[in-house]
């Protein structure tokens, strides 16, 4: 088995004149969690659909498993698992019935099917809900069922389209623990998400905006790039200060965090002096000012600002 689970090489999809995905390239090894980040309409779903073999790329190539997305979409479908953003199992079938149905679709049967169902139920903790109608499960359990379902045929590659959207923090953590467990077993996971703290959990993250891949790398490395460019200022009154600081030279953005402001700055030392000067002139009391490491949210907003939003 090659080390690379998923690769894309200048993968492009156009709908008429609109380019949804524009020449994106990346490689994901087995056992990795790949975080795919971007705003709504950035091209995440289109990319996933091309990699899953249900949407033909306009140009470029991609490989999933060892199969080509252009020429072998059917083979791809039998080696991948897919967890959709919207719950799309049958809500009027119970947990077991859903699993039996999809197991059969993937060609499992008899004792092997029942053995595998037992395994995925144990893995996801769905044992108690065997006879529960899928529609009656809570959001977190629905998502676990969707994951259990995607695991039936032991795929080595799983696509998860916002698997934690709309879930409470506890359920989200439970889902992520499950994902780690899978990755440890050598499965590669392609995860899209809106949540920055979730992106931090990935081995590699990629930002997509307007169909273009803006940045790709390890979360720590991406944060490093912006390391000395975030200035945390604790001051009063907060809102007045945030408006004032935004007008200063070298400040690219201001984010309010409770009692502090985070300034995205180009030159930390020079801006710090300017901030202190401006504050004293306007009667703003600064209690502390210090450079801090960038969070992924900072990276994300930094990447997304200055780019025209599509639509």
């Amino acid at each position, binding site marked *: 088995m090659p080390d690379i689970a998923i690769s894309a090489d200048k993968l492009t999809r156009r709908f008429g004149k609109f380019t949804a995905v524009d020449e994106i390239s990346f490689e994901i090894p087995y056992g990795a969690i790949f975080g795919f980040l971007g705003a709504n309409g950035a091209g995440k779903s289109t990319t996933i659909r091309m990699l*899953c*073999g*249900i949407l033909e790329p306009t140009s470029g190539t991609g490989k999933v498993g060892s199969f080509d997305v252009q020429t072998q979409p*059917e083979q791809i*479908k*039998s080696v*991948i698992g*897919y967890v*959709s953003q*919207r*719950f*799309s*199992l*049958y*809500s*009027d*079938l119970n947990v077991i*019935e859903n699993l*039996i*149905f*999809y197991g*059969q*679709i*993937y*060609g499992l*049967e008899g004792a092997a099917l029942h053995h595998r169902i037992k395994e995925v139920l144990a893995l996801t903790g769905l044992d108690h809900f065997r006879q529960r109608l899928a529609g009656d499960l809570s959001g977190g359990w629905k998502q676990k069922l969707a994951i259990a*379902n995607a695991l039936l045929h032991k795929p080595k590659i799983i*696509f998860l389209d916002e698997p934690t959207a709309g879930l409470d923090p506890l359920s989200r953590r439970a889902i992520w623990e499950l994902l780690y467990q899978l990755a440890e077993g050598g499965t590669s996971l392609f995860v899209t998400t809106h949540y920055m703290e979730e992106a931090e959990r990935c081995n590699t993250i990629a930002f997509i905006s307007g169909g273009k891949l803006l940045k790709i790398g390890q979360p720590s490395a991406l944060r490093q790039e912006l390391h000395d460019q975030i200035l945390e200022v604790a001051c009063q009154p907060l809102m007045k200060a945030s408006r004032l600081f935004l007008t200063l030279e070298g400040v690219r953005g201001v984010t309010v965090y409770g009692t502090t402001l985070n300034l995205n700055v180009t030159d930390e030392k020079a801006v710090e002096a300017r901030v202190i000067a401006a504050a004293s002139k306007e009667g703003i009391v600064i209690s502390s000012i210090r450079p801090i490491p960038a969070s992924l949210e900072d990276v994300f907003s930094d990447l997304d600002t200055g780019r025209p939003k599509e639509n």
Partner: protein
Amino acid sequence: MRSIWAIAYKEFIQLARDRRTLGLLIVMPMMQLMIYGYGINTDVKHLPTYVYDQDRSYLSRRLINAFTQSDYFTVKMQARSLPEAYSALDRGLAQSVLVIPPDFTANLVKKKTAQVQLLIDGTDSTPANVALNSSQAIVSAFMQNEKLIPVQVLPIDFRPRLWYNPDLKSTYFMLPGLIGLVLQFLVPMITATAIVREKERGNIEQLLVTPIKPYELILGKIIPYIFVGIFIAVSIITTMHYLFVVPIKGSIITLFSLTLVYLIVCLGIGLWASTVADNQQQASQLVMFLAMPSILLSGFIFPTESMPGWVRDISYFIPMTYFLKIVRGIILKGMGFFDLIDQVVPLLLMAVLVIVFSIKRFSKRMA
């Protein structure tokens, strides 16, 4: 093969849990049977009639008797004046008024022509026609029986007889036709909504990323509804035969095999509707829209033979037109497969066309 069975089995479970659809499947055919079997009776009998007998003689009473004994007319009231009789007609209390003038017997005795008037409410053409025709027969029989015309040897001894449905029972005509009507309505509706439901609830999104092929999905979805269609057909035929005592003259096997062909046409229509509609509501509206002309133009109620040319041309494109001739032919007349070949060939052709076309469309939509 296994995938087809997996889908069919899943579909059965879903159907068994869907109380509303299940209820519709059982209640609707029975309701239609009751309505057409008991409620709607196109046999015209016992027309309410007012009589204004100014003669009040033995002969006038004999004439009135002749009318009532025919079963076509029932005397509701002896009117005391002409305006009273007319207003009964106006107000719908009577559908016909028999007026016998005071000189009725006198004229007959003098061998002069006596006048008798029958006024008929012509609003509804069916009973009006029956009243018109039967009254003429009643009066000419009356003239012979009372020896009002000389007995003569007729040059033609004309003896019309009714075959297949000698008592002209409308249940004999309507109930076999109901098989066609109910299948045409229910089967496409349930098939279309079952397929569109997967689209509407997003299930299709998950199915698309599995290795399932479009034809497996279609066959798996269709198989349960073939059984549903057979169930509907059997329940109608059984009730019709045992409760309404409509005899089945022809072969049951021919009846079922040709019903199966018609069922496939209905499934195809449902499949097609599912490729056009985006949600279940649209799908059922579309099926209703298609069912309406079928009911009116197929000969279910009005014979296609009496339709103007261009309307009859439309009826040739309606599958039910052929199927009605088939069921009525087999059940009432005992016709065999080859007697019905003119109906069977177009129906088979439609089955093949509609299925091929819908599967093509469906596969394209899925990809």
